[in-house]
């Protein structure tokens, strides 16, 4: 029997998290390279409807892993349910999206099985029969190819955007769905989660913005935010920031771009003094044009910038504001 890759898709409140399609695409790509079989699993109180949705893709089988104890989500119940599934099905490789939920339970699951997770991967290579996973290190300044040295199951999670979800191949027909009922004993689940909620309605919706001027640590002091605001105003755009700026309270949290803030795709994203940590990049790499100003020529933001300006933003922004104003006034 060939080795099996199992993709665990993510559901929230009975809806498939779309990032799961990216993991299916990743699984299909590894299958193509290795000749292994691809299967998928959905975990939840009522996983069947999502399992049917996943079964339309090119996968050999989908498991609907169910127990009333899986709702609401807890790391204890998810780790226990998956431990039972993996013990029964024995996949070689288990793939998941690197979501906050997966980060919450997968290290526990792997540890309970004496295994490891190569987390937040951006790709894979199959070299001379050996599977290695590429991940970013040092906030994206370097990359590493990482291999497993333990026995299966191997666990890997993929960064949001590492694969294209819309490239997930459909199957010739619906794959079979197998319901796996797991027993989760009383006392296993120790945390009591309350309702999920959103903080006071977000005042600023940056997702529709066409031009965004975004500031990072390079702005140095709260009072300096003003020049970025002037530039945004001159351009007719919105002001945004990377997480540290909002953490410091220099701009409200609803102006934060990145994995814990908003994901944007404007026509123009002007990054001022943003180094480009992975958590920021995932929130803005879909922008049509990225201009980055940073004094550090090795800042990872330049990896994804269309236009790079290596220099001090305090030298560059004031004349830029004047030039923009002039251009606009000149019609």
């Amino acid at each position, binding site marked *: 029997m060939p080795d099996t890759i199992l993709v665990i898709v993510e559901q929230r409140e009975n809806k498939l998290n779309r990032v799961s399609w990216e993991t299916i695409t990743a699984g299909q790509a590894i299958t193509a390279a290795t000749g292994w079989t691809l299967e998928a699993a959905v975990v939840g109180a009522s996983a069947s409807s999502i399992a049917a949705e996943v079964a339309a893709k090119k996968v050999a089988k989908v498991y609907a892993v169910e127990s009333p104890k899986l709702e609401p989500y807890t*790391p204890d119940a998810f780790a226990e349910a998956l431990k039972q599934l993996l013990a029964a099905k024995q996949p070689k490789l288990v793939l998941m999206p690197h979501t*906050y*939920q997966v*980060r*919450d*339970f997968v*290290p*526990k699951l*792997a*540890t309970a099985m004496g*295994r490891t*997770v190569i987390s*937040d991967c951006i790709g894979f290579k199959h070299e001379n029969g050996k599977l*290695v996973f590429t991940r*970013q*290190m*040092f*906030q994206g*300044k*370097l*990359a*590493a*190819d*990482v*291999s497993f*040295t*333990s026995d299966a199951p191997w666990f890997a999670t993929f960064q949001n955007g590492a694969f294209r979800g819309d490239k997930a191949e459909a199957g010739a027909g619906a794959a079979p769905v197998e319901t796996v009922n797991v027993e989760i004993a009383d006392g296993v689940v*120790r*945390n*009591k*989660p*309350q309702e*999920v*909620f*959103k*903080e006071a309605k977000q005042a600023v919706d940056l997702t529709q913005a*066409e031009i965004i001027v975004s500031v990072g640590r390079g702005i140095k002091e709260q009072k300096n935010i003003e020049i970025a605001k002037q530039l945004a105003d001159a351009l007719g755009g919105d002001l945004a920031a990377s*997480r540290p700026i*909002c*953490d410091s309270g220099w701009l409200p949290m609803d102006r934060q771009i990145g994995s*814990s*803030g908003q*994901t944007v795709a404007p026509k*123009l994203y002007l990054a001022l003094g943003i180094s480009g940590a992975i958590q920021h990049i995932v929130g803005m790499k879909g922008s049509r*044009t990225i*201009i980055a100003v940073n004094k550090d020529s090795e*800042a990872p933001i330049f990896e*994804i*910038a*269309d*236009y*790079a*300006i290596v220099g001090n933003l305090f*030298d*560059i922004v*004031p*004349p*830029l504001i004047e*030039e*923009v104003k002039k251009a606009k006034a000149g019609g």
Partner: protein
Amino acid sequence: MKQVPQKDAPLKLNESAAWIREDVSYEVNEPDAYALEEALRQKEKHTGEVVVITSGPARSQQVLREALAKGADRAIHLEDNAFVGLDAFNTAKAFAAAIKDEKFDLIFTGLQSDDYGYAQTGVILAELLGWPHATIIMQIEKNDTGIRVKRELEAGFFQFVDMPLPAVLTIQSGINKLRYATLIGIKQAKNKPLRKVTLAEVQSAIGENLQKIERLYVPQKTKKTEHIEGSPSEIAKKLVDKLRNELRVI
């Protein structure tokens, strides 16, 4: 807590291309600074003791000294260069072995490190200790049965979770406002206890790494980047020309 290369430190690969050259400036991993701050605040609210722990070579003692200066009561240093190369599983095992005689109610870690970025060590430690955990925490309140924590979810969502003690929490940056060490704090830190743990003392608890960095490298650029150079006013003119004539956004 962990010591990591400074955010804007230029990194060079070492000769084996498996790690970076060590001659860079280091700082405390940012989320860990918030984890320490939260521990100090919880102590100020509920009394108790704050213990800080790190693993790494002699240089990483600096992280502990700073924490003691900010108000931590004592420190534990797993001191050996070999700790830098451990995977998250073995790092957590080493910590678990080093604290086996301690009686903590709460363990805080930063949610991830700026060097490896595994985002795993805290959760693994919880599992090794048999404790419950919660990740990406933005608020902690004591209640009758244990604690109520606020978890950050994605896309602006949050969730409160009630959980018993002892527990492990991974702390999100921005949960609080960091304090600075005071002069008197720095002075007092010199007399606070710092226990060193050698590799030999925890060696039996750790095994071979379960994952291996085959190679480390500078990522290949996939995007064509045009550099705009000149004096600030020349750069401004060139950029506005692009904005106007190529991108057509003004």
